[in-house]
Each structure stands twice: as structure tokens, then as C-alpha cells.
């Protein structure tokens, strides 16, 4: 085996790939070749590091220097300075606290300090397209262990004792789910993986599959052994081409190595895995809809019971877990249930990956122990709110979740506390909103999503969400009436109680939680026709401050509807009746003389 003196890890996650990380990689190959370093330095394409806002990311070992926002043009310098001469390229370092040359490595980066990576353990560490690298990091050791040393009951018992709960949204105890499926008697059972990540902004499942596909394959084989299934399906959205490609490579490699197929590890356990592509319907993340879709039918949920553990795919007992849940399985088997249970809170064990986005500096993927506070995630890891703005709320759980206001910043994040706050863990989307956010508008944003994604099977979701959206439209257009709030409340309550599946039952959550914490904003929209955040255009006007206006005329030039008039030495004026509120004038005014009048 070739030994290299240095490794260059380049992020090959979707985020970095879309900002040219593949070009960066080939540029490295070129310059290493030019400098005769190809035998000394190895370039490795890895999965996601999590700090997506700062991508493309390059990490150079043995120093562990994390270079961020690397451009193709920077590669030559990294090769010639760092790799050839041993001089770290300081201007590209993420860790800026290294004036004395003390801290240069990735461990010192604030973003990682409070994180604990279990599900993401191999992301940004190994090349996901090489099974050998996965194996080198204890890969398939857990499968070997369960097949050769443990009974299915012992496996289930371990998962139960670990306290692992479903990471896909519901938070159902994983071990219990495995036990139910194991107890169902049938000649055929199935194990499924839900990789139909649909929450807007959430991408942890994609990152796991892109960065560490074998961990899911291994876990599914373990699950198959535990519940008595020999066939698995991974349902993944077609919009994740890189993840699909790497999964396919991983499945092929696992088959070659005899880690999938017949008589795995010389036992009589057989397990095969197939990929099924989803067509992008959000509802197909709901378990019964997912299975209906795998069966080749229109992806729609069906009522439960019967639960999938009894009647799932093709009416056979089926175990369905989400990607992140599976990614936790091998470490639990390897390190033990007690280790896992020692992390987190009383009822929420282990870690949770969050896709942090919105008005936050470090947009990206974060894995923290359960019980970490929202404040730690937003300020310590997320780097706070850009432009010195104030934190207003965090939205968790995507379109099924709710908003948590600043007063609860110190709440520990786990399944139960989020529910108590009127939100939910969901798949782990976490959108941070600053003071310029209108909460009615936010509720409308999420509702637009559910209205679009409703499958149309049951009236509460099909028509009810549409009616709620129509009401929110009225309110944000300044046409709302006080009864609209009551109607919203009645609809929200009843849709929650009546809808057929989780999508519909949780669709009112964004409204319920904003009504709970920000009812005054709704009232201001309805009674005073005011949007204090200045977001709802119908209730806002752009005005020019006459004292500050220098009559330069730039605003009039950029105005697309020519509604600004004035002349030299006379302050310019906006004709509100014609203004389309595009904001171009405010953006372009060199003297910051244009304001939103709310």
C-alpha cells in the first residue's frame, strides 16, 4: 500500500460540488503532477464537512488545515506553498485565531467545537466511493458482530437500550419498531430506508448518503438480520444524483465484497438491496405513501393501522427507518447501547443533525448532542445573525414544524421540548429568522409548500390548507378581517385532528405556532393593516427622506415603473400609487435616504 506524506481532502458534497469543488480537485491533480508530488500527496474526495456556507472546503493533513471558500485559482498556491514548501496559506484558513501560529487545525474551528459527529462520523473523513476506506474506519464491523456473535433478539435489545429514536420526524423508538416488525410472522419481510428528504432546507440525509453510503447499507443489513428480512429498498429522491450515484457504487462494492448477497460473513443470512427513485413528492416521505410509491402506484398515504410492521410493502411486514437513524446503528453496535445512551437527554439519546439555514452566518450541517440549546446552535456553532440583526425566531421541523421565539433560546433541543414549544424535531431543518422577518409571511411560506405538496386524498388537507392559505393571503395583502383569525384557528385545529396522514395533520403547525407566539403580528396586520417587519408589500411604502436626499437622481433612473420624480436641488419623491415596491431605489440610493414606511 502506498504511503503518502500528505492528504488533501476536498469536499465532494452537493454544496461544494455546485461551487466547483470537482474542478478544484482536478486542479490539485494538475499542480501536484506539475510539481512531481503525485506520489507524495493524495487527493481525496470526501463527503460534506458541514460548513457549507464557507465552501468549497479543502482540508490538508497531517496539519488538518481547513481552507474555506477556496477558488480554483487558489489551488496553485496551496500546492506550491503548503504542499511543496510547508508554508500554510493563512489567508484561506477558516480558523482565524492563529496569529501566533498556535491553532491552525480543523479542531480549532469554532463551528466544530460543540459538535459531536456520530451519524456524520465519516463525512468529510473518508472517500465515500471506496469501501476500503469505510472498512478502515470500522466499517462492516458491526454487521460482522451481529451476524457472528449476536441473536436478532440481542440486536433489537441493544437498539432498544440505546434509546435511539427515529430521526425522520416522528421520533418513534427505533428498537420498538424493530421489535414489532420482528414479531410479525410472514414468509417475506422488507427493510426500507427513507431517503426521500423533503423538508425545504434539510439535507442531512443527502449528506450522509453522499459522504458515507456504506453506513446506511451496513445498518440496513443489520436491521434485516434483526427483523428477519432479506430484501431492502432505499427510497431516494431522484433530485439527489450524487447520493444516488454513490449509493449505487457502494451497493456494487458491498456485493463484490460479499457484504450484501448470499451467506454474508459465511452465515446463512442473505440480504439484498435495491434503490427506488422518488419523483420529488414531499408526501412520499410519509411511510405509507413511500411504500405505495415503491409498489409503483401514485404516492399517497393510507390510514394506519395496519402499521407497516404488520402490513407494509406489498402487504408484508416492513421496517422503515430514515437515513440518519440507520447511520447511528453501526456505532451503537460497535460501541454499545450504554455509550449511546450516555449522550443526550433523558428521553432523547444521542445526537441530532440539523441543517441550519436562514439568517445565520454559518449555514450548514451541524450534529450536536440532544439537549444542546438553541442558543448554542445559533450563536456558538452558527456564528450568530449576520449584519448585527436581532434573532427573532427559529423554525424547526420544516413545514410540519413551528417557530420558536427568542424567549426560548435557552431551551434544550430534544424531541419532547420541541413538541412542548409547539414545534417538532422533524427531520432537523433549522431556519433562523432575524427581526426583519414577518411571521405571518413565514407561516404563509410554509403553507404554500404544503398546499403544493398535498397529495389531494383527504379534504382537510386538500381543501383545508388551501383555505388557510387564502386567508393568509388576505391578511398579508391587508384585506384580512378579525374573523379570519378565528377561521384560521378553527381550520388549523380541525385539520390537525382530521387529516389522513402526518403531512396534513402537521400542516397547520406553522400557523398554530406563529399564532401562539406572534399573535400581535397577526392582529397588527388585520386591525392596523401594518406589517411591522416591512415584508408585506401591500402594507408598506417606500419613502425618500427629504433631508437626506441629495437629488442625485439615481433612484429615478433605476425605478422600473418611473414613479420617482424630482430635479436638481429638490428632493425626489416616490409616487406610492404607481410604486410596485421592488426596492431597487432603496438598494441603489448612495445616501441611504430611502426608507420603508410600515
Amino acid at each position, binding site marked *: 500500500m502506498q504511503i503518502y506524506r500528505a492528504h488533501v481532502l476536498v469536499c465532494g458534497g452537493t454544496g461544494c460540488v455546485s461551487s466547483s469543488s470537482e474542478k478544484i480537485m482536478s486542479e490539485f491533480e494538475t499542480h501536484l503532477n506539475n510539481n512531481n508530488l503525485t506520489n507524495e500527496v493524495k487527493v481525496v474526495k470526501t463527503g460534506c464537512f458541514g460548513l457549507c456556507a464557507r465552501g468549497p472546503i479543502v482540508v490538508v493533513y497531517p496539519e488538518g488545515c481547513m481552507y474555506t471558500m477556496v477558488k480554483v485559482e487558489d489551488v496553485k498556491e496551496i500546492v506550491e506553498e503548503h504542499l511543496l514548501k510547508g508554508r500554510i496559506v493563512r489567508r484561506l484558513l477558516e480558523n482565524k485565531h492563529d496569529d501566533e501560529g498556535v491553532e491552525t487545525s480543523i479542531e480549532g474551528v469554532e463551528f466544530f467545537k460543540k459538535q459531536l459527529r456520530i451519524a456524520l462520523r465519516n463525512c468529510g473523513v473518508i472517500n465515500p466511493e471506496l469501501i476500503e476506506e469505510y472498512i478502515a474506519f470500522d466499517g462492516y464491523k458491526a454487521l460482522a458482530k451481529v451476524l457472528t456473535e449476536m441473536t436478532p433478539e440481542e440486536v433489537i435489545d441493544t437498539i432498544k437500550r440505546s434509546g435511539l429514536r427515529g430521526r425522520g420526524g416522528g421520533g418513534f423508538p427505533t428498537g420498538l419498531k424493530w421489535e414489532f416488525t420482528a414479531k410479525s410472522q410472514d414468509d417475506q419481510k422488507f427493510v426500507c430506508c427513507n431517503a426521500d428528504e423533503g423538508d425545504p432546507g434539510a439535507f442531512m440525509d443527502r449528506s450522509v448518503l453522499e459522504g458515507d453510503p456504506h453506513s446506511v447499507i451496513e445498518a440496513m443489513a443489520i436491521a434485516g438480520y434483526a427483523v428477519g428480512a432479506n430484501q431492502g429498498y432505499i427510497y431516494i429522491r431522484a433530485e439527489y444524483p450524487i447520493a444516488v450515484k454513490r449509493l449505487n457504487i457502494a451497493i456494487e462494492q458491498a456485493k463484490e465484497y460479499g457484504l450484501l448477497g448470499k451467506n454474508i460473513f459465511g452465515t446463512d443470512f442473505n440480504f439484498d438491496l435495491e434503490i427506488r427513485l422518488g419523483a420529488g413528492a414531499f408526501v412520499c416521505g410519509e411511510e405509507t405513501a413511500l411504500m405505495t410509491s415503491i409498489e409503483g402506484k401514485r404516492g399517497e398515504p393510507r390510514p394506519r393501522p395496519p402499521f407497516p410492521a404488520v402490513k407494509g410493502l406489498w402487504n408484508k411486514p416492513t421496517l422503515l427507518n430514515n437515513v440518519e437513524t440507520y447511520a447511528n446503528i453501526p456505532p451503537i453496535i460497535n460501541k454499545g447501547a450504554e455509550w449511546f445512551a450516555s449522550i443526550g437527554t433523558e428521553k432523547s439519546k444521542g445526537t441530532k443533525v440539523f441543517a441550519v439555514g436562514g439568517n445565520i452566518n454559518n449555514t450548514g450541517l451541524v450534529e450536536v448532542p440532544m439537549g444542546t440549546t438553541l442558543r448554542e446552535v445559533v450563536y456558538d456553532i452558527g456564528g450568530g445573525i449576520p449584519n448585527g440583526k436581532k434573532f427573532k425566531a427559529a423554525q424547526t421541523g420544516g413545514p410540519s414544524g413551528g417557530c420558536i421565539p427568542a424567549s426560548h433560546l435557552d431551551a434544550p433541543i430534544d424531541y419532547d421540548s420541541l413538541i412542548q414549544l409547539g414545534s417538532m424535531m422533524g427531520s432537523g431543518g433549522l431556519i433562523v429568522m432575524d427581526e426583519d422577518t414577518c411571521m405571518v409571511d413565514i407561516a404563509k411560506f410554509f403553507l404554500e409548500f404544503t398546499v*403544493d405538496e398535498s397529495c389531494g386524498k383527504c*379534504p382537510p388537507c386538500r381543501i383545508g390548507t388551501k*383555505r388557510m392559505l387564502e386567508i393568509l393571503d388576505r391578511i398579508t395583502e391587508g384585506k384580512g378581517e378579525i374573523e379570519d383569525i378565528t377561521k384560521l384557528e378553527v*381550520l388549523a385545529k380541525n385539520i390537525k385532528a382530521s387529516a389522513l396522514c402526518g403531512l396534513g395533520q402537521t400542516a397547520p403547525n406553522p400557523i398554530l405556532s406563529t399564532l401562539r407566539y406572534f399573535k400581535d403580528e397577526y392582529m397588527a396586520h388585520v386591525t392596523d393593516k401594518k406589517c411591522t417587519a416591512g415584508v408585506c408589500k401591500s402594507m408598506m411604502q417606500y419613502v425618500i427622506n427629504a433631508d437626506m436626499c441629495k437629488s442625485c437622481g439615481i433612484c429615478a433612473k433605476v425605478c422600473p415603473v418611473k414613479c420617482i420624480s424630482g430635479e436638481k436641488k429638490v428632493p425626489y419623491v416616490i409616487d406610492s400609487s404607481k410604486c410596485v415596491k421592488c426596492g431597487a431605489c432603496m438598494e441603489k440610493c448612495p445616501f441611504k435616504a430611502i426608507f420603508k414606511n410600515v
Partner: protein
Amino acid sequence: METVNITIDSRKIQVPKNYTVLEAARFANIEIPTLCFLKDINEIGACRMCLVEIQGARSLQAACVYPVSEGLVINTQTPAVREARKVTLELILSNHDKKCLTCVRSNNCELQKLAQDLNIRDIRFEGESAKMPLDEISPSIVRDPNKCVLCRRCVSMCKNVQSVAVIDTTERGFKTLVTPAFNKSLNEVPCTMCGQCINVCPVGALREKDDTDKVWEALANKDLHVVVQTAPAVRVAIGEEFGMPIGSRATSNMVAALRRLGFSKVFDTDTAADLTIMEEGTELINRIKNGGKLPLITSCSPGWIKFCEHNFPEFIDNLSSCKSPHEMFGAVLKSYYAEKMGIDPSKIFVVSIMPCTAKKFEAQRPEMSSTGYPDVDVVLTTRELARMIREAAIDFNDLPERQFDDPMGEASGAGVIFGATGGVMEAALRTVTEILNGKPSDNIEYNAVRGIDGVKEAVVEAGGMKIKAAVAHGLGNARKLLEKVKNGEEYHFIEIMACPGGCVNGGGQPIQPSSVRSWVDLRAERAKAIYEEDKEMPIRKSHENPRVKMLYDEFFKEPGSHKAHELLHTHYTKRENYPEE
């Protein structure tokens, strides 16, 4: 039977273990409103009208699909349940074309009844409502998406029962629509026009193409000799339209009402059914004796014929060349009858009252005009006739005793049983066995081909040979039977009816709501009346019908004659399913 103990509305009861909450409630005489539910056909828990509180469940549950289990505690009438049902119903109503006053289903609409039952007095959540064009190109079925409540009963009927699958849900969310593929018309897809979708529609979103105006117009035209014929299944169902119990025989009332409507003659299609048996029986015997194509498959059901032309063109040569009875009758009326009565056939206007929507399509087939005029001018369904009777203010339940008109008013019991599944087969066997044996049979009731089993088989000995027969009703069962034949199973004679239960449950018959249909077998109840009618007939075999004998003596000479072929037989053509444009 294994049972479980449950508590429903504080009452402790014991119910079979395989019951749903809805069945358990019914067992306890507790009414739960439903809309999408149709027993055995559509149990999908979609409409959320049957929501109940299940102790321990996070949200309200659909009673129609929730299985009972030991110790289950159910509340069907709590404030939360009532409110949820009301809100859901108001939402459905907010996106429904509420033109109840002019809707064909007014007073027989499950949605209208729900709105009354749930005391809806205001729709709080009005908003955008669908405005879509009507699909009315089909000669048989009109589809009005603006009235559709997306319960999907029609989808399930078309797909799961009939295996035709020409309608399904498309789009999603608020835009969801039940429609043929590519939003085509029902007329442009392999729809068999069986009309079963109409019978299960809770509202007026699916209905027959109403042709009553054409009949009123003809009746008012002094130059026309307007005659009417009625299929056997009509008489055992039309009473339901006027409050009679399911399975009532209303032959006399029907004939009397038709007279009052002003038809010159009221004929019985059963006579032509006897004629069909003579022709088809002869065809069967010829095929068996001369090594013709077997099995011979019946051709009375135009929905089945269209299904075959679309889906099983390889069986077209197996189809009997006989026209369906009412078409035969039409051809006879415009030839023999015209001659005999001295009426110009162009002045004869034939109206068929059928339990069937596909017959509207059939009557338009170019093959069905062997006299140079359409054999049948207008086909009305049982429902349309009821509408005419109401429009004419005829008190259906108070009419004098009346009988069908001669010269073709007399029919045999064999002709009557055409209305139930297995009836054509039984009628044929009554005649064919006697012809082959050369002597009358003792037993003429063939119980093996009666009843509602999807596929029935019988082996009958006659003339020293064993005739192997099979009967399928409902196109899903027809498909199963044909697949069996394709896989090598050999039969001599097969009867296929497009509608489950045969014509008694045809797509043009009175519509019973799910609350009735789910628990009463319309097929069996109406068939019972058919067999009673048969039993009371003085003549029960087609070949013994003196009117049929007269027809052959005076006109056709013998079954299968040249003239018979000209007027009573037809041919079929393969049809494209989704032709490329």
C-alpha cells in the same frame, strides 16, 4: 367466529374480530356518516366524514377502515368529532358546484343528505372553487368535475372491479382531479361505457347522457309511430325510483306508465331475447358440430363487447355474431313489423328502455342499422324513464293492470332471466339441450350458473356430449376468465356480462346510496325478482315461444337463415386503446 369486546359510546359490546369500527357501530345501531366508503369496493378512509375518537389515538380516526381490537374504546359523538366532521364537510362543500336545484341527483345525493344530517347552515370557508369543462362527448356518460368530491368510488369501481381503469386521480392537492389519462374525454379512451361509475358516484359528478328530450320530441311528432321496448332488468328495478322496496316487480306499472306517456306500442325485449337464444343456440350447435371457433362467447352486453374489442381482440372471432336482443328487436320492428302493419319503416321510432348506459353507445354503432335505418333510435336508461314518468306527473304506484303489446308481447321465462348473470347461459341451455337431445328436459333450472360468484362453471350433458359452460359478470371477472381460456382452459360456451350481477345491476339502473348498497346486495335482490318472474311464466323456454315460432314461420324461415343474418347478426372490430395523435 372470534370476537372482541369493545366499548362504543359507553356501550360495551362484543363484535367479530374482523370488524371495522364502522361495522361495529352498525352492529350497535349507531349511525356514523360516510361519504367515500363503499363496502368491499372503496375502503380507503379518504373523505374523513366517518371520523371517530379512538381512546389513545393521537388524532381522530376513520371508522370505515379502523379495525376493532380487544378493549377498544370508541366515541362517535363528541364535540370534537362533530366539529371535525362539520368542518370537513364545509370544506368539501366549499369546492362543490352546489347547483342542487337543477342537479340530476337532487334528493338522491349523498352529499346533500350529509349536509342536512350534519345540520350545515352556513359554509364558513368558501374560497376558490374549481371551474372545469364538462366531459359530455361520450354517448353514454357525462362527467362533471365541478361536482366531483374525489371520493374515488368510481376510480375503484373502474379499476379494481371492472379492470377497465380509464379514470384515476391526476394532479395533486387542490388541483386533484378524477379524469381519464391526459385529460381526454371518456369517449376517447377505452371506456366500456358500462356506467358502473355512475352507480357508485355519491353526487352528480357522473351521470348518463340524458336523451329524454329526443323521446319527448318523437312522442309529440304526429308523423311518427313511436314504439318502446323494455329490457327484463328494468321491470325489477324501476319501482325503486318510486319508493318500492329493492327487488320489487313492477312490470304492469311500467307498461301502464309507458302507455300513458303516449307510446303507440309497448313491447317486451324478452321476446327478442328468445329470438337471440334461437340464433345463438343454433350458432353454438353449428360451431360445435362443424368445428367452428370455440368457446362461443355471448354478445348481449355492449359494455363487454367494447371491452373485448379494446382488450381482447384475439377473442373477437369467439363472439357470437348475434346482435343484442333490443337491437334484434329494432331490426325486426323496422322490417317484419313495418311490413305487417303497413307502416313505412322511416316513420317507426324505436325507443329502448335499458338498464344500461353502454346500449346508448351500441345503438350508435354503424353496424346497427341493417334495415337502412337505425335499429334503435334512442336508448333510455331505467333512470331516464323514471324521470319522464315523474315529469309527466304519472303516479307510478297507482296505475291499472297492463300487459305488453302484441304481436310481439309474449315472451318466455328464458327471455326474462337475461336480466341476471347466468341468465343467457341458462336460457340457451334450456333450448340447446332439448334440440340436441331431441326431447324436452325435465329440469330446466340451472342453479350452477345462477348467483353472484364472479366466475361460475357448469358441465351439461346433451346429445351424447358434455357441454362445458362458464359465466362471468363484471369485467374484472371477465378478464380472469379470458386469461384462463388463454392459458388453455377449454369451454364450449361462455356468457359474459359487463356489469357485476348482470343487467339487474346495470349502469342505467336506479342508484342506491352507499348506506344501502354497502349492506344490501342489489344484484341478489333484483335477481330474485327476475327468477320469480321466470317461475310464473307459462312458457319458460325460448323455442316454445309461439311468437318466435311465428316470426320464423312468417319471416326468417329458420334460425341462421340468410335473412336472419342480414337483420339479426353483426360483426366486431378491434379498437385502439390510446391511439397516438
